[in-house]
């Protein structure tokens, strides 16, 4: 059976648009709210990234940090995250879910045990921010055996030789970091330049799906339409924080935001 992630890309292509990937932190603002948010955005998002919150995130900007600290403060544990995914899949079993996090969380849980739980709860892909290639070779192989995509990150600093090697080893989906930044930074490179870099990467192996992430908001998403997929994370986390601050319902607000994002790429 084809991984639902690949099906999602196919479907978006048929509609002649990029796939929309959303990122929310598991357990933000609480376990229940987090599940409600997933359910409410799944109509408009093609792939759901769910962050595994960590308290020393070296690649995340302030928005995602705030969400992560909030989730941890509200008691989220790794097992709760699997529970959220499982419950969500009962609601929408074909919607692909990707977990994104830092390696220590997996290392402490145990790689094999973690992957088994991923399989059982319905996780379709993994992004591990601080487990780059070639360090991730072994773990990526384990993922493959479980039919879970291990998603490689590619950056503007990745050299051409390295790009080729990573893509050769990669699974069907990769993630291009738009610019030198932590998550949620202001887009400091023009969308055109990002797309130029994207095309260079795409040319190495056109069959691999490449999504672009970091710094994408309502304002910029439309300009990056040619990509296979676009990830919005910090803007959503920011919306959750904003809603809480104004005592509004984050579920409806985030749902509205995702709908708007979708409308920009149709």
């Amino acid at each position, binding site marked *: 059976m084809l991984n639902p992630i690949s099906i999602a890309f196919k479907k978006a292509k048929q509609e002649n648009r990029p796939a929309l990937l959303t990122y929310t932190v598991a357990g933000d603002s609480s376990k229940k709210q987090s599940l409600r948010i997933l359910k409410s955005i799944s109509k408009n998002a093609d792939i759901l990234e769910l962050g595994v919150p*960590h308290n*020393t995130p*070296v690649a995340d900007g302030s928005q995602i940090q705030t969400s992560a600290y909030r989730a941890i403060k509200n008691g989220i*544990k790794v097992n709760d995250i699997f529970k959220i995914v499982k419950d969500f899949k009962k609601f929408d079993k074909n919607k692909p879910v990707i977990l994104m996090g830092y390696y*220590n969380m997996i290392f402490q849980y145990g790689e094999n045990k973690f992957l088994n739980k991923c399989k059982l709860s319905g996780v379709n892909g993994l992004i591990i921010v601080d487990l*780059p290639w070639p360090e991730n070779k072994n773990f990526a192989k384990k993922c493959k055996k479980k039919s879970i995509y291990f998603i490689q990150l590619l950056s503007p600093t*990745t050299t051409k030789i390295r790009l080729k090697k990573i893509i050769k080893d990669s699974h069907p989906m990769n993630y291009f970091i738009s610019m030198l*930044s*932590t998550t949620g930074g202001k887009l400091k490179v023009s969308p055109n330049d990002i797309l130029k870099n994207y095309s260079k990467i795409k040319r190495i192996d056109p069959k691999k799906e490449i999504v672009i992430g970091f710094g994408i908001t309502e304002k910029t998403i439309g300009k990056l339409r040619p990509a296979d997929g676009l990830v919005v994370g910090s803007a959503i986390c920011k919306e959750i924080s904003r809603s809480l601050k104004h005592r509004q319902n984050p579920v409806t607000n985030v749902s509205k935001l995702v709908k708007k994002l979708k409308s920009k790429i149709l």
Partner: protein
Amino acid sequence: MKLKKGIPVIDQGNKLGFWGGKFGGNFVPETLKKPIEDLEVLFNKLKKDKKFIQERDKYFKNWIGVPTRFIKLENLSRHVGGAQIWSKVVSDANGGAHKVYNATVHCLLAKRSGKKVIIGDTGAGYAGKMLSMAAKKFGLKCKIFMGAKDIARQQPNVKAMKKNGAEVVPVYSGSQTLVDAVSECMRFWVANCDTTAMCVGSTVGPAVFVRICGWSTSQISRELKVQLIDEFGSIPKKLKLYNCVGGGSSSFGFWNEFMDYDKKQCEFIGIEAGGPAKSKKHAAPLTYGSKIGILHGAAQYVNQNSDGQIEETESISAGLDYPGISPLHCFLKDTKRARYTAASDEQALEAYKLVTRFEKLRPSLEPSHAFAVAISESKKLSKDTIVVVNSCGDAYKDRGILEKRLGKKYVKSN
């Protein structure tokens, strides 16, 4: 796991940067792979380059003022009544602590790589102070990341950084101490690695930073070896080297040249921060058997919960207040080359009182931890045992804390 003889410990890691196959490595975001590789290539080349070594030695001698003193603490030894207690007064170095060696080397590397800005983290403020000093000396712009809690408790060093023209960036996330400062500094590097050089303030972080720092602080043991031979004619038969361990840069540098000696002749004792006696929190992952985990790009023993969240630490000494520990020390622990123990806040304060009562020496709260254990163990040791404590920092920065905890006389009389 085995320590090899004849090869510097910093070069004993495998291809992926792991010591003993499991400590260290490069758990970094993809964006940092290239700048880290560039730094590795540069460092590997320059550390074999005679001209670069000469340049380093020139600045060490003329600017840092090496060698630092090696003195006998006669009165303290008499009072304790056991081993002979000596001190390597590394706080003599320009700026008042060992952090100046690593800062200088990083600035020299930054110059060679054409970078105009250098960033760094700091806990006690010494790493930041020294980096700001060196950056000024070498004409680099400097930005220092420091936890808000540390900014409040280490004001003299904050003032020094600002005076040197550095921008001090307060970090409000997490526990607002060193661990958060290092994270924030790494984040800044992720976003600016094309124009900016990063200096990690201790023997922590991705493997190349561990190596550069260890290489730099090893100046301490190079000097000590010469000084011991000058004093005793040869390396003493019973030598014990006591050093506090936070990230582990001063202790590694204090021991490096003695690595190949049998530990029966030359024993290494690392003293971690045990925190307040009444608190369960500590900054002593080696002493209290913390599990191996990943922090700031490296696998190491680290205080964490069962889920892998890094735990908050607590210590009176900002410089030791770090949940992890250098991969080098994890390696030295597991190969049993070094022994690790902890001293509490209160023990460190008592040791500070005792040392300053008997000697014209003013160790900061970090080395006071080492003095606490050295003094208590020396009582039971024979007169021909040579105990050396690295007094790696000066207490000037701790004035506020010392005055609050011990009263004015301990600040003024020294």
